[in-house]
């Protein structure tokens, strides 16, 4: 259980895709609903983020650019099983978001 903040901007969105669109190499005609997290995390920022922002802006951190707060899944959808064109079963785990948060 990580520490995260639920933000109004960071939302769960969904798109209807073919499994082949995922680019994982599976050859199949199956489809899925892919859910992902998107949106700004500005309201979740702390003094830490503000300081990092200032230091990066003033080029005080050389080439280092530490990660900022971002909108990520904090829980994943159930596994997805499908049959490929060679009639082999595959199961995808942690492939789609269930819940989002700024982490």
């Amino acid at each position, binding site marked *: 259980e990580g520490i995260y903040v639920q933000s109004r901007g960071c939302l769960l969105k969904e798109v209807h895709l073919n499994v082949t669109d995922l680019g*994982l*190499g599976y050859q199949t005609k199956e489809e899925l609903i892919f859910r992902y997290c998107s949106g700004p995390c500005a309201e979740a920022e702390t003094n830490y983020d503000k300081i990092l922002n200032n230091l990066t802006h003033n080029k005080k951190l050389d080439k280092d650019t530490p990660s900022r707060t971002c909108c990520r899944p904090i829980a994943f959808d159930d596994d997805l099983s499908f049959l490929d064109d060679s009639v082999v079963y595959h199961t995808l785990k942690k492939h789609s978001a269930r819940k989002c948060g700024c982490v």
Partner: protein
Amino acid sequence: MQDSAAERPHFSLCWARRPYYASWFHMDVTTGVLYLNRTLEPADFSSQYPTSWPVKRLSVQAVVSNSFIKGSQCAAKRKALITLDFVNATMPVCAETDLKELCFPHTYNPHIVENRFPGAFRQFRRLTRLAVCPNLTVSYSVESDSPAPFAVSENSTELVVTAPLDREESELYRLVMVCTVRTETLITRLETPLDVFVDDEDDNAPYLNGTETADVVISFNRTKGGTFGSLRVFDRDLTTIFPKDKSHNRYVETLLSSDPWIKETFDIKSSFSERKTSPAGIRESVHEYYLVLKRNLHVSENRSVYIDYFVNDTTYPGLEGAVVLHFNVTILPVQINFANTTQEFTVSRRASVYAQVGRICVENCLEFGGFRVTYWLEVLDKNASASSLSCHAAISITQAPDGMWGLLYVNDSEPLHRPECQDLRYAVVAQEEFKELETSTQIQVLLDGEAEQEIQDNQQLLSCAEKRQRRDCEAFRGLGATTGRCLWRPGAGKGISDHYSTCSPDLRTCPDGFCDAVESKDVSICPQDCTTKPVTGGHERGLSGNGVRAGHGTCYCYTDKCFCEKEDVEDVICDDMCKTIVATAL
């Protein structure tokens, strides 16, 4: 149907719990014809369980016996189920009656047991329909493509089997029933197919097809559960598997030996199957018998035994319903030897720790079963100096728990760099688990390449599998690398391929879909074969559930967490020629 001319059928209805309509019906005791006892009224339809359905289904059970049956006796008898569809309407007039309905009842395909008394088995007249069409003359005949012992009796319009049937001659008769309907002006002919199945009984004795003796030699494989030899017993009858308690064509087998050694060592297992005879296509049973070892045989066991096995078809009514099978068994003792007295292996001085040097195996070791052979290395020169002994620490031997191979591998790469370590001589000792058999051979491990004092091997070596690009891979010194550098396997095939791109310490053993005894010493050596963790990206797991059997694009691993993904720009796109051209252009 009768089983003999002496049988006299007595028909009656049988009620487990008398329904409200029980009194409406009556069955003729000698003919088995079902009659209405009374005229059905509209009130009868709605009398019980009122529903809005236009049809109610009434079920009636009938029994038949050689003598009169009292109501209470019928419960234990086999019953025929009669279903009657009770329609909330009056009978259609003859002009509205479909001729197909008039001619043929709704019927199932009949079964007749072989070797039984001939007789009538199906009444074709539709009594309810004929009653509304008294002016029509309906007659029946039966036809078939090949000669078949079936006919329609002239006066009764019953289908009759005219002779006892033999399943071993024909399992199925495909008949066509022909119905001819005559009016004063018109003759109409209708046909319907009828398949008559012949049910089997045990009327054939088992037989052998030439071979009654199996010669069995047990030598290298002497594992408990191992099967040897095979003898087949044929039976023209069928063997039913359902219901399980059915005793038809039941075989009882007995091992005819009082020798306690045979009884505690051997068992005979059987399996049965069904095949179709050619060209008639009649099914028959095939029973196959195997000799099975009940325990692991000791390596020194050396004897010959003769095992007789009695197979009895207990339900065959004739005299010769049994056959005797013979297993002529020779058990040879096992010897262990090395094929070569000395063997030479070469290892690069740059090889990393866990690099595989070679394999050791006593003769026929792959066929061994039921006992284990373990290998170890000994330094040949017992009075060797401490420095020589430290050189010999370079190589070690390991063995998978289920394997008969010994794998030589680099246990310590530091001595390989030292100039004073030249060639390493060992004795490989192979010993059978009960220490009764032991053999040894000499091996010489040659160190290839220049001694290089400066290679620092003390740092923790990492896995070749971490590298995602050919250039990084081939420049990297990874765990298990035989030449000191990792090797790149370029991928072939689209989608999820067995031949994915990956970086490996030794392309002979990694990835080969098998986590061998050396690789399993440290999962970082070849995580592609050995990982047990979930893999991210398009992939297929190995057969054992470990490792990556097939992957999409390039598969790489950090420790034992593997990823398979297609790189957007494959570095194989720009080969050496292309690089030259790009460099020139710049």
